[in-house]
């Protein structure tokens, strides 16, 4: 089904372009431009060569570039900016994964919509969780903590989240061969 493959190509191309250009919406510094170019290069390389490693490097550079752009511009904290970049990143990685399968297979009618469905579901969930997290952080900000406590709490919260998530993944990985 050629139409499905064309649609997926456009989808992936659009995700790469937006993910690469995202930090440039905030600042046009030369370093940011260079990192954006590298991000786009890795993404296109990974796309054409079916390489997950290149996609990882693209995502990694894009994350650093976006963070740098936000710090340099001293942009006020904005949940939407982060979530939109996150959805773009997910569209890029998920689209690349689908693309590697679709490239060698014959698509049956209606498969493109079927493949888009998990993306929509996860994106909706991410938006809900993002807003919940944002509300929680705003609520935490109302407490009169000292500045040093905030830093310590952030590190402790991040470590706790990473640890819990790792444990969850390890626990569920035990049931891989059912």
């Amino acid at each position, binding site marked *: 089904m050629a139409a499905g493959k064309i649609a997926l190509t456009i989808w992936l191309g659009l995700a790469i372009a937006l993910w690469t250009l995202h930090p440039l919406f905030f600042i046009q510094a030369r370093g940011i431009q260079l990192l954006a170019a590298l991000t786009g290069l890795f993404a296109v390389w990974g796309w054409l060569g079916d390489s*997950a490693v290149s996609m*990882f490097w693209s*995502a*990694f550079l894009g*994350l*650093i570039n*976006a*963070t740098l752009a*936000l*710090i340099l511009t001293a942009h006020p*904290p904005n*949940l939407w*900016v*982060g*979530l939109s*970049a*996150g*959805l773009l*990143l*997910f569209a890029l*990685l*998920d689209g690349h*994964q689908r693309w590697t*399968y*679709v490239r*060698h*297979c*014959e*698509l*049956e009618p209606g*498969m493109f919509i*079927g*493949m888009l469905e*998990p*993306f929509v*579901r*996860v*994106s909706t*969930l*991410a938006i809900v*969780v*993002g807003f919940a*997290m*944002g509300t929680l*952080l705003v609520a935490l900000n109302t407490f009169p903590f000292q500045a040093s406590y905030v830093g310590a709490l*952030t*590190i402790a919260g*991040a470590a706790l*989240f*990473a640890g819990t*998530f*790792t444990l*969850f*993944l390890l626990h*569920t*990985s035990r*049931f*891989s*061969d*059912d």
Partner: protein
Amino acid sequence: MQRRYQAQNYLYFGLLLIGLLLSAMSRRIEPLCMVLPLACALVCGRLARPVPVLHLDVTITPIQAFEGDPITVRVHLRAETDIPPMELWHPLPPEATCTDGATRHLVALRRGEEKTFEHQVTFVRRGEYTLGHLYSRIHPNVGLQPLLAEHHCEQTCRIYPQMLFLNHLMPPSHTHISFGHYVARAAGEGLEFAGIRPYTTGDRIRRIHWATSLKRQQLYINEYYREHNADVILLLDTLMAAGHPHRGTTLDISVRAAASLASYYLRQKDRVGLVSYGGVCTWLQPSSGQQQWYRILDALLTARTHFSYHSKDITLVPPRVLPPGALIFVLTALLDRRIEAALNDLVARAFQLVMVVVSPVHAMGSQHFEGESRLWRLETEANLHKFRSLGVPIIIQDAENPLTHLHEAFTRRPVWQRGKSL
């Protein structure tokens, strides 16, 4: 079905940790939000674990075919549960090509839904091949933990060598009395009408020619030409072969020629036998009929080169396999000089030899190597000069079909010099 974790899981998790680190270092919420969809995808993939049930049937028709003939593979799917996007792959042997349809499909099925896929496979080389071993990969949810399964619906296909076109009559010079398509000059038992003669004691009543007998008032009987047939032996050189292991070798070309000659002479009601001369020497006794045709095809199907430093002596082949006066077609690439010893022996025993020399240049598929082709031809001509001088018809392959010039070689050959040794 087996659940497997893709590299994408580690990639997502790595990016999640990087985003978390960047968020903690920069004290900004955005990096964490950027990796939030990845965390959601990982959690969704782990929590929902559907167990799809699928029934799969494979039909392969026909299971016996000739090289180049299309074989239809029909895969029928029936879903007992909802099947998320599934990749279905039917890997083919390297000798096979998919000429119509696709061997990989991406499909999603609802509960109770049935679907049939069809593709055509063509084999470029003879042999026994197994088709119908399928793999499926189901991608539930975000596809981070695909379910892999193997489906064993194997069926064995027998691919017989392709028949080469032979339209001219190539009668052997030595025949013997038996039922066959060759008629003798002498009258005897047969079907071909020769004439009439006066009745003598002992003649069959059913052969009386009543019209002439009534006209001449004397009994006349019909006479028929005696029927003959010949013994044809196909000597296949399996000492060595050159070419591409999947697309075809000199042995495959020889096998095609042997199958075509066997088919042709069996149609003429001749007795055809087969000798595979190599490290392991095998043979089939000459016989005629459809059954012998299948025996030869089955023997040719498994003909392989068995490399050995020890070559068998052709005298070991029993006399009933090499009957006196038999027409022997030698199908060789002359890559191993040990075949010449066997040929010398056969010439000395006054067999009628016809040599078909298969070109390794054609087997390699190197059409552009004009120089190599000419060099090989010159060398072969020089090696075969002694046989040519004895009147052995030699056909050197210079086209796709090695038997193209067989008729010319038959018709222009000099008088056979019986019993002359080298």
